[in-house]
């Protein structure tokens, strides 16, 4: 017998005669207020920055972030309108710009797909994430129940990279970006 059959047969033996526990239903999601507003609040509490912007405001935000920088790395889904700076490889870029799959208000989270590019999400010290307002879900449960296609990896990012492993002092930007900025985009794109 191989390891698989041995392990499974031991499990079946152990479970014989054991009462089977029922799987509880998922709870009903709580009624949401304005998810975008809650999202921005939670982001701030997580140590990230969030802005609710229209097209013009978004470009201004990007211009501010880009000031004095030689270039940026871009996710595949980032519209041309946001590619103000020359493109640099993520290993060298001082700024990464990604487009999120969706966002979650209750936890202050953006969900990033591997299809958009993983390095741009992780290597530059500053990360700007774009997400459409209608893609902000009130809760994780609603977002997960709604998810139909699964890219090879999804990263849920809820703030800047941090660690308190050195003498219990909080340090930002340990491995991932030390600064996370999210632009919630209003209107059509």
């Amino acid at each position, binding site marked *: 017998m191989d390891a698989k059959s041995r392990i499974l047969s031991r499990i079946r033996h152990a*479970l014989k005669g054991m009462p089977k526990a029922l799987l509880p239903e998922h709870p009903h999601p709580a009624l949401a207020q304005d998810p975008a507003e809650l999202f921005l609040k939670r982001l701030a509490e997580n140590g990230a920055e969030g802005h609710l912007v229209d097209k013009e405001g978004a470009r201004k935000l990007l211009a501010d972030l880009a000031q004095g920088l030689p270039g940026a790395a871009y996710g595949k889904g980032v519209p041309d309108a946001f590619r103000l700076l020359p493109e640099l490889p993520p290993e060298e870029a001082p700024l990464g710009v990604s487009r999120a799959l969706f966002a979650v208000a209750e936890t202050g989270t953006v969900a990033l797909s591997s299809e958009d590019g993983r390095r741009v999400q992780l290597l530059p010290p500053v990360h700007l994430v774009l997400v459409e307002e209608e893609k902000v879900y009130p809760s994780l449960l609603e977002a997960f129940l709604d998810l139909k296609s699964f890219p090879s*990896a999804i990263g849920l990012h*809820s703030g800047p990279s941090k660690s308190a*492993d050195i003498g219990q002092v909080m340090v930002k930007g340990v491995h991932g970006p030390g600064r996370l900025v999210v632009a919630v985009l209003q209107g059509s794109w």
Partner: protein
Amino acid sequence: MQVKAKLYPKEAARLLREHPGVREAVTGATLHFEANRKRAYQEIDAEIWRERARRVKDHLLTHLDHYLELAEKRLQEKGVRVYWAEGPEEAHRILREIVARHGVKRAVKAKSMLTEELGVNPLLESLGVEVYETDLGEYLIQLLGEPPSHIVGPAIHLALSDIQRLFHGRFGTPLDASPEALAAVARKVLREAFLTADLGISGANFLVAETGTLALMENEGNIRLSTSLPRVHVAFVGIEKLLPRFADLALFLPLTARAATGQRLSTYVSLIQGPAKEGEEGPKEVHVVLVDHGRTTLLHDPEAWEVLRCLRCGACLNACPVYRQTGGHPYGYVYSGPIGAVLDPGLLGLEDTYPLPYASTLCGACYEACPVKIPIPKLLLTWRKRAVERGLAPTWERGAIQAFSKVMQSPSLYRFFSKALRGLPLPQDLLPLLKAWTEGRGPLRPSPKPFHQLWQELKE
């Protein structure tokens, strides 16, 4: 990992004597975690969340064969290679083959308790692979050659000055370097490792059977990097880590984060579905090793199996007044604190671990903290009872307890002994009970007046 749990009482006393700073560092860190957890539980209806999580895990465990096969099927459909391993031997064989096939020279590792169980680092080193632990705390203890002392904060026993000294010797940083400066040095070394490693190794917080999704939680970004940059990713997953449905993550991710650190969600969660697709960044191969290593033995044990619900959040460690005194090292195995005291005997056998269930005051704080409501105090008593039944507890203990209960039941005997012992110079080294205590500690000093006398005086 070598098991030294039998030495717990001695090692705990030695640590307190030789490294008094550890108690302060661990107490500070765990009280901080514990306060954050309490605040985070108050924000939600914690009782409902915990009860639901308990029920999902119980369902999973009582249908474990079904969900394991489903997970394997879903993973394979997405191009993940799945292996099954009884324990270290098979796990090593699998890893050795992958290392050889890809000519792996350098590996980056995301913190995983299971890989500690399996001794993955020593194996890789013996194969000539350079291994980098990439969680900052784990990297620190790797440099020191120590095992982790906490499930979530592996280096909480180290004070800032310990790390300043370590980095001074290692990288020539000044002795008063700030935490930011030290982190920047580690970041540089590890960034280089991420960019050049051939292999990324991780554990998993959860494996969703329905979709074949590996879920990993962290705050630094090192797990995302370890599972994204190298061309091969190997994940070691304990067979109890499964969840039935993808949407169960909506409960378990935030609940684990709240229990572990008091966050609403960990800063990063990786949800991994398989190797990178054509033209996409990411590992070209993903391997999942499903590991038993004692779990099926526990499943067989109707009095002890509930411990398999454990999420490894560390909340019971933070809540424990006994763990707080020493941190995890004296427990002598990967899992320490309350969870270690009820998991280690189940995984390794009571013969090698019998002192651990005694490392508790049975105050119940661990149960209150546990996100999946594992009845740790009840399980501690189960293991203690077994230790006595199997004659593992020291023989003097039984006699001492019997004598003690006689004395305690008779006021006149109690009064007599309380006076007699108080008057005598204590024969510290004659009584084994006292010796076990006095070894490594100061002498016992009885208070001049007995308690019942003080109580009387107080009342008057």
